[in-house]
């Protein structure tokens, strides 16, 4: 039983295309996150949702649009893909509820390659 799952695991696409990555957690957490890990393994927060409400939105191009249909799901849609979008995207979840000391649980990652 995977706690945080992402689909697809690998995504290869052409520049200019639109693609989506899906994330689901079965931990009962109320907060979910998207991170981007670049080729140098640097990990940076992109978005965070708490109870389907956007609470963190870092300086990410508006081509990236997260959507949270419910507390257990957080999807990431990317329009007009660019070469620089190539990275590994990680979804994570945690209990928030006003407590920023709770650890986050990460999905296995989606490796996006833009050609």
């Amino acid at each position, binding site marked *: 039983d995977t706690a945080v799952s992402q689909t697809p695991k690998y995504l290869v696409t052409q520049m200019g295309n639109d693609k989506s990555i899906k994330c689901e957690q079965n931990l009962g957490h109320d*907060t979910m996150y998207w991170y981007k890990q670049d080729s140098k393994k*640097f*990990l940076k927060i992109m978005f965070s949702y708490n109870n389907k409400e956007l609470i963190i939105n870092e300086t990410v191009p508006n081509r990236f649009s997260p959507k949270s249909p419910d507390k257990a799901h957080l999807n990431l849609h990317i329009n007009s893909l660019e070469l620089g979008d190539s990275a590994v995207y*990680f979804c994570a979840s945690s209990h928030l509820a006003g407590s*920023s000391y709770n*650890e986050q649980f*990460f999905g296995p990652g989606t490796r996006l390659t833009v050609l």
Partner: protein
Amino acid sequence: AQSVAQPEDQVNVAEGNPLTVKCTYSVSGNPYLFWYVQYPNRGLQFLLKYITGDNLVKGSYGFEAEFNKSQTSFHLKKPSALVSDSALYFCAVRVPISGNTPLVFGKGTRLSVIA
């Protein structure tokens, strides 16, 4: 703004020897500090965290870390390294101002344990 520094890109240690992976932080206020490990082609896994109280924190797989407020450090340690400990280690910090402050990661340190 909060930040984390991991001064070593790579740490090499012989199996059975003690290991240390260094982390220093910069925040306004008291930090919440975390260590995560990433095995190849996997998501991050939580190892341990410091919230408050005892400066020595014990975590998974025999790892521990010591919070040192005067040196603003949170070094990860293990008394006897295993080859299976070889992975990428991330230190992270969060400031407990409110629930919507992001978790900020260091750039990671690659640990290589040699048999």
